[in-house]
């Protein structure tokens, strides 16, 4: 077995990466200390493997064969390639904030005329501003997960967005991650979104590669706090290149009567994992998460959600749809914790997987940990193939096998896509799904 070899080599490469990158990482004093602690934690934990329960289905010791060194700051050529990518991924009516190879690219971003109540800075700026209160929040995630710890140690840049009480910028904010590196490299980003009370915003994040960019590794994390009475609509589209690796973590906290509407779709990347911890910390808060995996070839995509109901009277709805073709592997792990105080919690989780080939695989692991007695909680899961009688009906009307499948797959994921409130973004998700379906035909 070369598993052990892979582990040591990847592990060593990551240690080297930290040593090499250290001088380039923004932040001194406390920030540097936190990075060092985080890295030590990472070294202790090592790359997650299948005997770590949370990573059971995504064994990075086997899936992450090598660790690339930290991407260089994008040069003129990289920025040029990224510019092309921006043009083909432009969304109408949004404010674009671009990270190229893990570094904020001001010339590709729209930072003018922010208006009242909206403040946007880069992670670098915030980390270099020693008295910023945000630093503590930026490093709030514990080092108990190896990949979160690694991200804390290595984050080079990101966007830090603050929305003041009562503010509700109309334009959605689009954080566009572009991989543009000429050689295989890793990018580490950390972003923060802080919504005051009675505020609202729509945040889109998408991950893409510039033309011709092949192997790269994305390590991203996002920290979100949604103030009392505020609403965040959040859409994520993972359209990374087919050789890419994407490990993203999110930590979301909701205040009282806050509302978090989330949609995530993964159609790109070779190996990806999205892990999110969502905490209902204020009474009456509400969470809706909708996830879609569209996978083929040998893609592996893992969504692992922890919904923490910490206080009474909160509601959560989790919907997940996986479409898995060829030898791809989809993973959904949904854990719901209802703490002793969280009476009247209403939590539901429903996952469905559609297997398009005999070798496709979908794992689904629901976990309910309920410590309160007056709650409504439930989960359901189904896995199956496309319904033959529906396929035949469509084919008898003239649709080819692929066309018939495409129509049924669109319907299958449509239910999740419907949850996106913003019309433009919903259309965007629909066309991303369509691109995937067309590529299969």
């Amino acid at each position: 077995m070369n598993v052990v070899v892979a582990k040591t080599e990847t592990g060593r490469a990551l240690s080297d990466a930290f040593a090499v990158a250290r001088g380039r990482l923004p932040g001194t004093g406390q920030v540097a200390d936190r990075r060092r602690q985080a890295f030590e934690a990472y070294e202790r934990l090592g790359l997650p493997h299948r005997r770590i329960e949370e990573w059971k289905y995504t064994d990075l010791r086997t899936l992450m064969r090598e660790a690339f060194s930290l991407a260089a700051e994008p040069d003129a050529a990289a920025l040029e390639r990224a510019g092309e990518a921006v043009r083909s991924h432009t969304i109408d009516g949004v404010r674009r904030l671009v990270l190229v190879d893990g570094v904020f690219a001001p010339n590709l971003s729209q930072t003018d005329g922010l208006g009242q109540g909206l403040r946007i800075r880069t992670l670098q700026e915030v980390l270099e501003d020693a008295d910023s209160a945000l630093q503590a929040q930026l490093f709030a995630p514990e080092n108990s997960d190896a990949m979160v710890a690694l991200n804390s140690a290595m984050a080079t840049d990101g966007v830090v967005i603050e929305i003041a009480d009562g503010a509700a910028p109309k334009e959605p904010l689009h954080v566009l991650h572009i991989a543009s590196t000429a050689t295989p490299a890793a990018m580490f980003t950390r972003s923060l979104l802080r919504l005051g009370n009675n505020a609202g915003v729509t945040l889109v994040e998408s991950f893409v590669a510039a033309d011709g960019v092949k192997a790269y590794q994305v390590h991203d994390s996002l920290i979100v706090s949604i103030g009392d009475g505020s609403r965040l609509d959040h859409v994520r589209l993972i359209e990374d290149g087919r050789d890419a690796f994407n490990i993203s973590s999110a930590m979301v906290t909701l205040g009282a009567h806050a509302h978090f509407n989330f949609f995530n779709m993964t159609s790109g990347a070779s190996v990806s994992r999205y892990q999110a911890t969502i905490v209902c910390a204020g009474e009456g808060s509400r969470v809706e998460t909708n996830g879609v995996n569209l996978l083929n070839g040998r893609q592996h995509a893992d969504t692992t959600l922890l919904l923490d109901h910490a206080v009474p009277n909160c509601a959560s709805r989790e919907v997940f749809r996986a479409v898995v073709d060829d030898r791809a592997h989809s993973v959904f792990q949904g854990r719901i914790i209802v703490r002793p105080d969280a009476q009247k919690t209403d939590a539901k989780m429903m996952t469905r997987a559609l297997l398009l080939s005999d070798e496709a695989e979908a794992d689904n692991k629901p976990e309910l940990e309920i410590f309160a007695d007056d709650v409504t909680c439930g989960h359901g899961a189904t896995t199956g193939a496309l319904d033959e009688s529906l396929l035949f009906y469509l084919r008898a009307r003239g649709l080819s096998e692929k066309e018939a499948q495409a129509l049924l797959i669109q319907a299958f994921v449509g239910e999740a896509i419907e949850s996106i409130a913003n019309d433009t973004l919903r259309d965007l998700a629909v066309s991303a799904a369509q691109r995937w379906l067309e590529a299969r035909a």
Partner: protein
Amino acid sequence: MALLEIKDLHVRVEDNEILHGLSLTVNEGEVHAIMGPNGSGKSTLSHVIAGKPDYEVTGGQILFNGEDLLAMQPDERAAKGVFLAFQYPVEIPGVATMTFLRTALNAQRKARGESELLTPAFLKKAYEVAARLNVPRDMLKRGVNVGFSGGEKKRNEILQMALFEPSLCILDEMDSGLDIDALRVAADGVNALRSPDRAMVVITHYQRLLNYVVPDFVHVMSKGRVVKSGGKELALELEASGYTQFEDAA
């Protein structure tokens, strides 16, 4: 050359032979009625013509305009003009009826080398046909057959037939579940499609439909074969005497 020529067809489903040497010839312009007791194989025949998988043809052949129909995929058959109005149309949640109709019509046109209909032209055509068949627009806005009553599903089948303009229409119990008014509208729709270059095979248990859609030929199926053929008066005979005489014959 006949439009449809079925010769000595043997069909199995999961080790049971259901059609045991069935023959039938249908020419352009003709309307054939097929009657016969429950389980005699009428729907099986219609499914095999449309190309449903899970049926194994163990003998015989089906020619459509002289071509080997059994060698074609279901969608090729549709593009060449075979249409089956299902006895039990399925519900397809999440697929909007209009999207379905447009995709199907254009897939057929494309396969025939015709240009695709753009949305405005398609909408015009679809609404025109729907109005002619008394299909409310509201029905077209829903998912395919989702929440439709039995009768509404049947009307949706007739609507598709009128929209696709096939050369061979097989109607499997289109009259079941239709109320008297709906039956008349649907039958008018079918009659409007009668033409010298189109044929119909109407599967039914009841004479009433045949009062509206008057057949040129009536066939009696029993136990997987055509056991008797005749003119439209055969249907009246059956109505009076039932199928018992043929069950013995089969």
